[in-house]
């Protein structure tokens, strides 16, 4: 099995859920404001993997889970994931209430944000986990989560929002780390292999960039034209 470097943000998830349980506070998790039908889908899928993992931990420890959602069509997916997690941990009674754990707030970005901030203020979560596509609301959520006293773990691949998460959260997952979350947490050798394969992908991208620079400097624009067409 390939050795993956430690990701403190992912290692801290279990500790954060445990802390929330001890404090008798809920765990709030969200997958961002992206959907499943556009370019942000990979981020949402990464977030959904995290929802499954966190739901399993909540079921195991008996922590209350709240999952605010922006897209209505993500709600049934999240509900199914949470229900499966609770069932697999033998908490069938709670699994039947998975629909109440996922809260659809609003399709509008800032209406969603306001409602989400209200949840953070009222519920005072012990752990606040955000993995997925976040835009301007990222810092608002992270700051209010901080004032609510939650341990915060956040990750996004939206480069403009990463600094906000780094500044305001206890642990931040940067870019590709969110895509590796599912593989990292599953401990599955094949999935871990694909994460190690990403490094090969990056090496290839680097070689292509250097080649591109050399060819462009030499006046060879054939590949550039080919890619443009």
């Amino acid at each position, binding site marked *: 099995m390939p050795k993956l470097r430690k990701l403190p943000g992912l290692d801290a998830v279990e500790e954060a859920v445990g802390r929330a349980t001890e404090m008798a506070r809920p765990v709030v998790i969200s997958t961002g404001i992206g959907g499943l039908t556009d370019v942000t889908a990979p981020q949402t899928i990464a977030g959904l993997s995290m929802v499954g993992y966190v739901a399993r931990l909540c079921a195991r420890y008996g922590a209350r889970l709240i999952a605010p959602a922006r897209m209505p069509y993500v709600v049934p997916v999240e509900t199914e994931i949470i229900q499966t997690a609770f069932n697999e941990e033998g908490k069938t009674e709670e699994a039947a209430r998975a629909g109440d754990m996922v809260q659809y707030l609003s399709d509008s970005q800032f209406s969603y944000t306001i409602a989400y901030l209200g949840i953070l203020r009222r519920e005072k979560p012990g752990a606040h986990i955000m993995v997925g596509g976040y835009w301007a609301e990222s810092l608002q959520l992270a700051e209010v989560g901080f004032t609510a006293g939650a341990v915060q773990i956040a990750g996004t691949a939206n480069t403009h929002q990463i600094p906000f998460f780094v500044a305001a959260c206890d642990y931040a997952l940067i870019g590709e780390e969110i895509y590796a979350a599912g593989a990292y947490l599953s401990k599955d050798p094949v*999935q871990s292999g694909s994460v190690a394969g990403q490094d090969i992908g990056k090496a290839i991208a680097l070689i292509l960039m250097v080649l591109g620079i050399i060819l462009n400097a030499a006046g060879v624009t054939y590949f550039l034209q080919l890619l443009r067409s």
Partner: protein
Amino acid sequence: MSFYKRKEIPILLTTFIALVMIFSTFFKVKAAQDFASTMQTWVLVIVNFTVILGIVMITRMHKGRIEKRKPGDNSWIFSVWLIVLVVFYFLLGVYGVESSRSATPTRNPAFAWVYTNINVALDSAMYSMLAFFISSAAFRAFKARTKEAAVLLLSAAVIMLYNAPAGSVIFGPLAEQFNALSEWILNVPNMAGFRGILIGAAVGAISLGIRVMTGRERGYLGAGE
């Protein structure tokens, strides 16, 4: 529900549709492109129908809050207000579509007025609050506890002064050199890090896509393996 129904069929569907979509993007085969176009229409129809699901869920949730209201806690009034607004805005939207004979309700003056003067104004107010959140986050983050944090603090201070009108006043005759330094920070080390993260994220997304298509990544189907 059987294992095959829960896991294998969704994975097969995901893989098949993803392969056709990728194929139709890179190869100009009419059958594949027609299929991809039909799939995209299906997605639009399904996504739009889930809005009804959203309305039902939000109404059910707030109806529950109203029913379970406790003495002394008046927060249920907001739930009543929310349901009233959902119904009002829905009816106004339907009226807008009907009266303007257009699929865009904002062509109706009443709907457009509510949208522009309430919705847009509230959204803008919420967005502008970001400035205060940035200040409080910056106050906590910009503490030179480590060497890395000191570099962050210094570069952030330079960029803030560069963007603020006060920067060029403070540096007076050295303003041009200061601006050049700020632009260098933005365009060289900042851009290098930015692009590194971007390339890593793109490769990571491709890797995740392959895992989803091969059925290895099953998180989106439920937590179980």
